[in-house]
């Protein structure tokens, strides 16, 4: 229990620093592709996390990220939406017998198709919300759409690679 809590806090802190110091510096096609990989920290919260805690963690993660990469409130609103939708998406795609208490939302535990649906839907929700509120206008609609899709794709690819690097099948208990 304590290990799980500590592991999640450490992972979230590491991901926020990774985002602010490394990933946000990546510049592809004049900012057309802008991955926000720090949401991995929210996606990896264990299944049995109470929903109020997921929401609160989402808000805190967004708020901290805002300090690094404003305007203030932008990451917060996107992350709160993500954290609200996360358990709903989990419910939608749950296996027939529900989630086991030893299962984690990882590729190793749930399989690649499940993981890609899970991460894909939630990343799209987060990125759409984020980029919509960043620009807050519907002009350049096509550009924004491409921006959202390519950035989401980049985030998902990076998160999937990260999965294979961080979790190996033995230590997937965090």
């Amino acid at each position: 229990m304590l290990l799980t809590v500590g592991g999640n806090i450490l992972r979230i802190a590491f991901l926020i620093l990774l985002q602010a110091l490394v990933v946000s510096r990546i510049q592809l096609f004049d900012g057309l592709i802008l991955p926000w990989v720090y949401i991995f920290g929210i996606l990896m919260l264990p299944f049995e996390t109470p929903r109020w805690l997921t929401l609160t963690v989402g808000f805190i993660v967004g708020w901290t990220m805002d300090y690094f990469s404003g305007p203030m409130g932008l990451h917060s609103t996107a992350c709160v939406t993500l954290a609200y939708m996360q358990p709903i998406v989990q419910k939608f795609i749950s296996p027939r017998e529900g989630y086991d208490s030893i299962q984690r939302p990882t590729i190793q535990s749930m399989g690649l198709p499940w993981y890609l649906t899970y991460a894909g839907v939630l990343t799209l929700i987060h990125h759409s919300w984020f980029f919509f509120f960043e620009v807050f206008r519907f002009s350049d609609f096509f550009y924004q759409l491409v921006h959202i899709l390519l950035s989401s794709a980049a985030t998902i690819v990076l998160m999937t690679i990260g999965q294979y690097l961080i979790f190996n099948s033995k230590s997937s208990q965090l």
Partner: protein
Amino acid sequence: MRNILVLIQRFYLFLLFLLLQLVALYILFDNNNFHRAEFIQHSNDWTGFIYGKRSQLSEYLRLGEINDELSLENAVLRSERPENFITTRSGADSVENTKTLQRYVYRTAKVVNATVNREKNFLTLDRGLLSGVKADMGVLANGCLVGVVRSASDHFAVVMPVIHADFKASVKLKKYGVIGSLEWAGGNPGVADVVEIPKNIPAAIGDTVLTSGYSTFYPAEVLVGTIESVDDESSNEYHILKIKLGADIRLLSQVQVVSDILKMEQDSLLDKVIQQDAAYSRR
């Protein structure tokens, strides 16, 4: 009363979601004035510290380049030393010091963080109020326009660069002296737009664009960039000029912060006239 409690119990998650969402959106949209919270929060000291560490590291990797820039600037400055000039005037009538009055003061600063791939980009400088850097001062790099300081804490300042969606500056074409407006529409951080130049002005590729001096943020005649392409299709009366910015925000390391000593005087005079006007029209 009990019904309300039952209702809250049933929907508390959604209510918590709404509450957090309202807090976030309120903060996001509640800063529409010039000194936006967006800029204040980036000059806070702990993120400034972390970004400072990173820029120390990345700057180390391009020391050679920075060295070249600095030595070039040294050469330019050295050539401006008074010993390099001879006076062509004879006689005792040249009391230079009473004829000129210093208006602009330059301070150097280092860029510790920059975003270039967003709609609203910003730079963080390693100097703040304690070094005399305040809001509304202009920022230049090697004599080219970079942006304007929007907010400063004790040790850091945050700059709104040219490549910020809300940035606007009054500029002119060097060749013709016509005034236009500098904007940035997103996308390529090396290119900005100049609008409001009438089509009867024969603007051509390669022409130089300078600041107009109408704003009290920067001196006049500061290089902004050169025209890269001329678009006459999108508007009926005006050119839309794409200009290549003189200062590449992506590669900035050393910048100069310009403070205008007479800014207060100029601004307060205008304010006074505006107030008098308002009083006059009320009568």
